[in-house]
């Protein structure tokens, strides 16, 4: 077998140990891949809806604050940027709060799972369920390297590998064997470790917030909804409507799987990590980003249309989806506010029961369509379908609300709140933003330097072994 020879044509500069989390160390052996990886730190491209700049989604669209009232996302939510920022962003987010010690803060340690190649290292050290136990702050000094080589590669062979148990377990529960995945499938599955909907299952191991992908019935909004409904699971109770809510987090892989590119065998890497030529050498571009910043190497490998036409194709699909997604968002704000009004007027739990389930289901569908920022291009027909069903359900809920409100003696339109800015919306739902921001500043000044110091010491001790 001379098949794998090319993999060893390179002269390795350094030895890369198992669980090596430091991207710079891998970079010594693979300078091109590393250089391009480093470009994920760029902040210079904004497309119509995405790009690598920091986009404060709550500012762009303050309705989100109301939809997430009572949940961390109403404090802070940004459109994701490059992999190089993964650790920085999870540290800075108001969602992770301002823990004062390792047992403090709103988030569990599971939140680290998709942010760093230190994760496989820690999982190996402590065990999977142990990793998922305790608070997020507990691992602050351990997890410092942003997403990188060890998340996707085997250091011996450089083969693509699955380093996160949640994906393997999800496949198992579906009766599929991930080790049988083809090379081409692996070029998407490495992404499916993170760009997927998830929840924390507290019933698997006592005390662990066990990372779980809700795929047992399938990938569509309805199939995952049924999964959660059957388990009586909810992420939080809405502050206004008291509905038992679900949060969809970036179901990128799931929605991609329902689109035509997946059906034709086109992988995530084909568009987000195309081949690149530099100095007569070809390699995989590790500058993972919006393909709209790189149409020539991505789309145009398969499509001969001009760049302008391909951009138009993407924007046209996004526009057609987002028009109705925005509408659904407005309807959901109304539903929450109307439900609150009903409670205020003395509605009973029995009367509200069906209405709250409608709100739960409609918002789940909206989030399924919105949370994966590529979905309106990855699978526009399916996303459009999902939004339509969401609109129907939201409006059914509002019809029931209209009848209930009339019963309770209020038979007119409930006024739409003034939520024209993020600040107004956060005030409307009663968030003490000044306090949250102050505490975060203090956390950054006092706790973060300690974490970094701890990490520096550890990594210095490892050193680098040159060949």
């Amino acid at each position, binding site marked *: 077998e001379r098949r794998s020879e090319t993999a060893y044509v390179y002269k390795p500069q350094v030895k890369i140990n198992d669980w090596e989390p430091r991207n710079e160390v891998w970079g010594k052996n693979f300078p091109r891949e590393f250089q391009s990886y480093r470009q994920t730190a760029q902040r210079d491209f904004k497309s119509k809806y995405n790009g690598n700049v920091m986009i404060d989604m709550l500012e762009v669209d303050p309705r989100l604050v109301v939809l997430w009232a009572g949940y961390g996302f109403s404090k802070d939510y940004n459109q994701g940027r490059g992999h190089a920022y993964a650790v920085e962003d999870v540290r800075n987010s108001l969602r992770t709060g301002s823990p004062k010690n390792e047992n403090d803060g709103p988030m569990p340690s599971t939140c680290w799972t998709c942010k760093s190649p230190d994760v496989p290292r820690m999982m190996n050290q402590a065990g999977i369920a142990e990793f998922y136990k305790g608070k997020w702050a507990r691992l602050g000094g351990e997890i410092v390297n942003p997403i990188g080589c060890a998340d996707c590669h085997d250091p011996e062979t450089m083969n693509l590998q699955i380093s996160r148990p949640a994906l393997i377990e999800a496949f198992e529960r579906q009766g599929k064997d991930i080790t049988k995945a083809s090379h*081409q499938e692996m070029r998407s599955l490495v992404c499916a470790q993170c760009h997927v909907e998830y929840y924390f299952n507290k019933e698997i191991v006592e005390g662990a917030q066990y990372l779980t992908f809700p795929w047992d019935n399938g990938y569509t909004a309805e199939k995952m909804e049924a999964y959660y409904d059957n388990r009586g699971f909810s992420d939080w109770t809405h502050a206004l409507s008291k509905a038992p809510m679900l949060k969809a987090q970036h179901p990128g892989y799931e929605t991609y799987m329902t689109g035509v590119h997946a059906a034709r*065998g086109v992988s995530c890497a*084909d568009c987000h990590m*195309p*081949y690149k030529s530099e100095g007569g050498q*070809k390699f995989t571009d590790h500058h993972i980003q919006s393909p709209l910043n790189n149409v020539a190497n991505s789309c145009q*490998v398969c499509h*001969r249309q001009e760049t302008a036409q391909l951009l138009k194709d993407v924007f046209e699909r996004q526009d057609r989806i987002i028009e109705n997604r925005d509408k659904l968002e407005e309807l959901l704000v109304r539903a929450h506010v109307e439900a609150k009004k009903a409670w205020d007027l003395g509605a009973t739990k029995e009367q509200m029961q069906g209405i709250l389930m409608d709100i739960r289901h409609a918002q789940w569908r909206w989030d399924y369509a919105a949370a994966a920022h590529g979905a309106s291009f990855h699978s526009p027909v399916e996303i459009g379908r999902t939004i339509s069903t969401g609109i129907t359900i939201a409006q059914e809920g509002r019809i029931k609300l209209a009848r209930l409100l009339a019963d309770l003696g209020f038979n007119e339109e409930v006024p739409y709140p003034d939520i024209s800015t993020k600040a107004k919306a956060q005030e409307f739902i009663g968030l003490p933003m000044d306090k949250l921001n102050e505490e975060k500043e203090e956390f950054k000044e006092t706790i973060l330097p300690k974490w970094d110091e701890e990490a520096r010491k550890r990594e210095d001790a490892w050193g680098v072994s040159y060949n």
Partner: protein
Amino acid sequence: MREFIKKLLPPNGWQVPVVILLGIIIGLGLYIFRISNASSYLSDNSETCINCHVMNPQYATWVHSSHREVANCNDCHVPHNNVLNKYYFKAKDGLRHATIFTMRDEPQVIFIKEEGKEVVQQNCIRCHEKLVTDNAGIARFETSKHFRMERSCVECHRETPHGRVNSLAAVPNAQIPKLETVVPGWLDKIMNKSKK
């Protein structure tokens, strides 16, 4: 630099004829341009080729192929490695076609010449290079890159774009664009009348 100039020159065997042909072209230039609509031959428009009815079968099959929107005749049949070579090849080929045609010597079934085949092959690769060389693409096909690059693409892709059946007799009624009568005279007439 010398490499560059060398690249611009036509292949060895054709350097003499080129000089002669250039002479002819310059000599008869104006005259030919006027009588033959020749300016159109400088374009890449596929319609140019069906100025000759014998090209109708190829036009008809091309216009029904998936390449219609992405590749015109010249994209495949003229070298694209450099500009000079492109027009040199065009002139050479065009003059031969014109001569045969004028002498009413055209065969029922046209076959591509060896040289033309090589041009076509290079053009397939020109457009599809990324697909047939990048490892993502290769992963999708049983055959290896090596195996495919060394054979003629058309060996496998027999139907691309003209199909196997394309003699003059095979497409007797082939429609070629002559759209001056999209709105028939009678309708034009009564529509104008009804407007007044």
